[in-house]
């Protein structure tokens, strides 16, 4: 430490014990303890001393340069704004297609699809038990015929489509490519993502079919297939969002998500695939919660950590492999059913943190989401929130304006360090599949969720409208979206029609080919799944074949 540093530290120390202590004597701190949502202590004030350990060139750098702390692009939103990408999906394909067109007219610039639970879990709409969930919290897709209807009139060569699909992602990805192909659109112009992050399903969102190992190998299949036939498409979108929504802290979100991403790529490398062939098309999805600076710093920390791990640990040489390109969504779990209009403010502030953190695309939640999927009027406010941030606030006019902030840089380093420690803990257990199977990750998230609940109930965390500023006589006057009537019957009729009109022999031949290849986990199943999809095999039929070979993963009852 040089003389200047020493003098500065002495001055801060004297000021803390003098001025600051005197002020607290007069007006005590508002809280006994200040922490981030991850529980890291927050000091009164941050100074140059807190970022002295950072090398401005090595650790902070410049936007568009390694380690990308300041963003993946040099010019960020001064050139191209982030993609406004609201997720939509309900009813039959036609219902969602109409919503897409409404959203595009409203100012959205990319599409994002939520599938219904039977589709996500690999069951057809005529399933005896699960048919009551057809078209409920997502769109029903049984065959490529539905996929054609979903994207009817949407220029797939011009607009990117994100699809929230996990255990059955391989089938839906093949469908997307077949729809484009049957419309004469070549695979190499397709852009978008399938979420396809099965590991976070076992630990957070709980939509899984098969056990972890074959599932991870299937993800590797989709990545390799993507690189071959749709090289501008991201087959994998590694997803912290659900981990956070399930209760993880920001640090746990980063640590677990990056552990998941490493697991996929390391399995690909074990298969002999060059990491630089797949890594450039891996994207990420983050949850942006209430603690403004922690969330902005989280995005900066995650980018730096990913770049370093990819370069140093996986030995990736292509700079595009080092980039963490991210979609963000404001935190669904932060929304309250009480005083729902407050959610507009929460969402706006969270969206601002995502933008200041340097996201590439953004979904802003709608005010009614603590109660139902969004109504059209609520979505419009959410979309307009992004337009206001972009055009009215000026925050998008400078690249990474938070850089150099004593607090933000210090927090960025703290999050990177703590997340890396978690990644190393998981490595020591034998990796993410082991952390899933042992229940470690589920328990970690569940414990954090519980701690947050305890804080709310003890009024240690203030949630406006819930444990403070409560309106006893509040009435809710928001519009609630209701299920589309008759969807299940119409969807079952369409499925029956597809089954009547297809070539049965072709379907069974293609399904048998999958069944025969599936036991060898190194065999890429995607070309075979594409054949089956083209023959109009259903999501349920294809997943049933794989269930038959690989079995089911048993859900955890840990709490």
């Amino acid at each position, binding site marked *: 430490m040089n003389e200047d540093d020493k003098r500065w530290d002495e001055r801060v120390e004297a000021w803390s014990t003098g001025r600051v202590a005197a002020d607290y004597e007069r007006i005590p701190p508002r809280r006994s303890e200040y922490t981030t949502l991850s529980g890291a202590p927050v000091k009164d004030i941050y100074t140059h001393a807190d970022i002295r350990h950072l090398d401005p060139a090595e650790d902070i750098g410049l936007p568009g340069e390694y380690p990308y702390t300041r963003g993946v692009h040099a010019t960020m939103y001064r050139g191209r704004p982030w993609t406004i990408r609201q997720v939509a999906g309900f009813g039959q394909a036609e219902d969602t297609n109409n919503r897409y067109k409404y959203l595009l007219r409203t100012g959205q610039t990319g599409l994002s699809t939520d599938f219904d639970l039977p589709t996500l879990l690999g069951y057809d709409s005529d399933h005896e038990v699960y048919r009551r969930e057809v078209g409920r919290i997502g769109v029903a897709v049984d065959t490529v015929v539905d996929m054609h209807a979903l994207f009817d009139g949407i220029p797939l060569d011009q607009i990117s489509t994100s699809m929230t699909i996990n255990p059955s992602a391989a089938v839906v990805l093949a469908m997307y490519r077949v729809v484009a192909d049957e419309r004469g659109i070549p695979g190499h112009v397709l852009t978008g993502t399938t979420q396809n992050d099965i590991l976070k399903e076992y630990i957070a969102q709980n939509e899984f079919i098969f056990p972890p190992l074959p599932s991870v190998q299937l993800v590797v299949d989709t990545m390799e297939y993507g690189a071959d036939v749709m090289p501008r498409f991201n087959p994998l979108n590694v997803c912290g969002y659900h981990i956070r929504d*399930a209760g993880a802290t920001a640090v746990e979100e980063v640590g677990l998500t990056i552990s998941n991403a490493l697991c996929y790529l390391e399995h690909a490398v074990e298969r002999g695939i060059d990491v630089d062939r797949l890594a450039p098309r891996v994207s990420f999805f983050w949850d942006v919660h209430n603690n403004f600076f922690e969330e902005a710093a989280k995005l900066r920390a995650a980018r730096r950590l990913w770049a370093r791990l990819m370069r140093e640990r996986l030995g990736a040489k292509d700079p595009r492999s080092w980039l963490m390109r991210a979609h963000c969504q404001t935190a669904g779990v932060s929304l*309250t*059913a009480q005083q729902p209009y407050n959610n507009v403010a929460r969402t706006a502030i969270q969206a601002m943190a995502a933008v200041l953190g340097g996201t590439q695309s953004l979904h802003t939640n709608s005010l009614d989401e603590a*109660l139902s999927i969004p109504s059209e009027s609520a979505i419009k406010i959410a979309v307009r929130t992004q337009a206001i941030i972009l055009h009215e606030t000026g925050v998008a006019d400078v690249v990474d304006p938070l850089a150099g902030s004593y607090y933000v840089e210090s927090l960025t380093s703290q999050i990177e360090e703590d997340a890396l420690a978690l990644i190393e803990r998981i490595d020591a257990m034998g990796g993410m599949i082991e952390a899933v199977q042992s229940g470690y990750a589920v328990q970690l998230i569940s414990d954090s969720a519980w701690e947050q609940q305890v804080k709310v*109930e003890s009024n240690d965390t203030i949630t406006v409208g819930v444990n403070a500023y409560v309106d006893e006589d509040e009435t809710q006057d928001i519009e609630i979206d209701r299920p589309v009537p008759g969807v299940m019957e119409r969807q079952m009729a369409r499925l029956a029609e597809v089954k009547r009109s297809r070539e049965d022999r072709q379907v069974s031949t293609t399904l048998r080919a999958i069944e025969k290849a599936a036991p060898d986990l190194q065999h890429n199943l995607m070309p075979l799944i594409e054949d089956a999809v083209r023959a109009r095999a259903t999501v349920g039929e294809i997943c049933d074949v794989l269930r038959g070979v690989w079995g089911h993963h048993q*859900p955890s009852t840990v709490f």
Partner: protein
Amino acid sequence: MTSATAGLPPLKVVIAKPGLDGHDRGAKVVARALRDSGMEVVYTGIYQSPESILRAVVQEDADVLGLSSLSGAHLEYARDLCALLKENDRRDVLFVVGGTIPPEDADTLKGYGVHEVFGPGTPTAELVEYISRNARQARLA
């Protein structure tokens, strides 16, 4: 523990997630809160059918069934469960529902026989109190 419940074994609660909905943060938080309050709690895990939930209630000889739904299909699952509880002579089970339930659905659910509906943001203390007060006195209508 009130004097009325003193000496009785702890309340037994089954917490269940119906259908394909995997969002179980709320179910687990509730399970933990009830356990911490001294109740015996069985969490079924996700992917349960009304029939498998009924089986859990019968096998565990539960006093309380808590159904958690965020899938929008709460009306169907709750209706079927009410019917199954009645058919199987478990009218004495206190049946509560929680999750993303639009407020106007609460009356429909109660019409089926659900005793109480707890929306998002309900403090767990409120749940514990409600269950302690009403379990073992319930009769499905």
